């Protein structure tokens, strides 16, 4: 069982790496924004499997943190992405 789960972790991790290659290559900012999202799902799956394999129940808490913080990073991506795509509008504007 442990061997099977470890192999699954390695496989998902390899898929995550290939996906990252495809995303980071671009061409646009919107592609790169998907990076945090990809790590959000793939990284959580890896952590959960890893926690079961190594019998570390606390790995679930790391997955929980990763879920929250990857979402936060995605939103920061979008926020910055929007402010650079649109000169004004719904993006962050300075009002004095």
């Amino acid at each position: 069982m442990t061997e099977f789960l470890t192999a699954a972790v390695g496989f998902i991790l390899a898929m995550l790496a290939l996906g990252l290659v495809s995303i980071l290559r671009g061409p646009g900012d919107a592609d790169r924004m998907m990076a945090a999202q990809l790590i959000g799902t793939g990284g959580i799956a890896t952590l959960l499997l890893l926690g079961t394999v190594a019998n570390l129940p606390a790995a679930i808490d790391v997955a929980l943190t990763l879920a929250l913080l990857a979402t936060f990073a995605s939103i920061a991506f979008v926020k910055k992405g929007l402010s650079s795509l649109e000169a004004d509008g719904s993006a962050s504007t300075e009002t004095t």
Partner: protein
Amino acid sequence: MSIATIFEIVLAAVVLGLGIWTIVVRETYSATVGYVAYGLLVALIWVRLDAIDVALTEAAIGGGLGGVLLLGAAARLRDSEPTVADAPGKAVRVCAAILSALTAAALAGAVLVLPDPAPTLAPAAASNAWATSLANPVTNVLMAFRAMDTMLEKVVLLLAIIGVWSLTPDSAWGGRPGPRHQADPHSVLVFLARLLPPIGIVVGIYIFWTGANHPGGAFQGGAILAAMWLLAIMAGLADTPPVRSRWLRLVLIAGPGLFLVVGLAGLLFGAAFLSYPPAQAKPLILGIEVAMILTIAATLGLLLAGAPERSARQ
């Protein structure tokens, strides 16, 4: 070679590949994105090294908040890509490559010749754990055995925020950090910023509370709370507080202040600076940690928000 080793090689290769991408890619924004991914994935290595406390810290502060900090700067500085003339010449590059390769090789050699039962303080930490009645050894080290480091680290946070604020232009002194974010109130961003923070608050306080006996603690919980606060700010649902606000300053010094008071009390009535009487060790540590999580959340959030840019009346 076992399956586990193959998995570890894959993980190391992915992380190292992201590191290379971060250094060699031409566009600064892409490099920053690569660094965020790197920070989030390093947490996996820490889990594999059985250091869950560090994994939580690295995921929250290293990858999450740190990445977002760099990302914001990259977006603002986007149009200031340097001219080619700025780049160092080939000779400098080659020298730098040789120097870096030598450093890396020396470190790799050190890793390879590490003595197998390495010198360790783990038994000492475990045998003295009774003194605090906390079950998480890392929290014991942070809050009792190496409490001085932790206190000074709070002071570093305080100094950093003072440094950031001292860059305020005169016109905005005492005002609010960062721009006022505005978002369409019907947008999905605002929708998520309404739903997620309450969940994040429960998770953050849980990570903090569980730190007494399981992996977790004030840093990790505080970082989650700071992220949720910043999410509400980015969606325009909340605003950064004016820097001159009294309660804000009180929160910022609460953690190191209480730490210092307890430490001095230890000097006056106990054995040494920062010594806790064993009977009250747990409540004292918990009290300091409650003050610390507030300080950490506020400081991390304000460090990300940056120097004040608007006058306080806005």
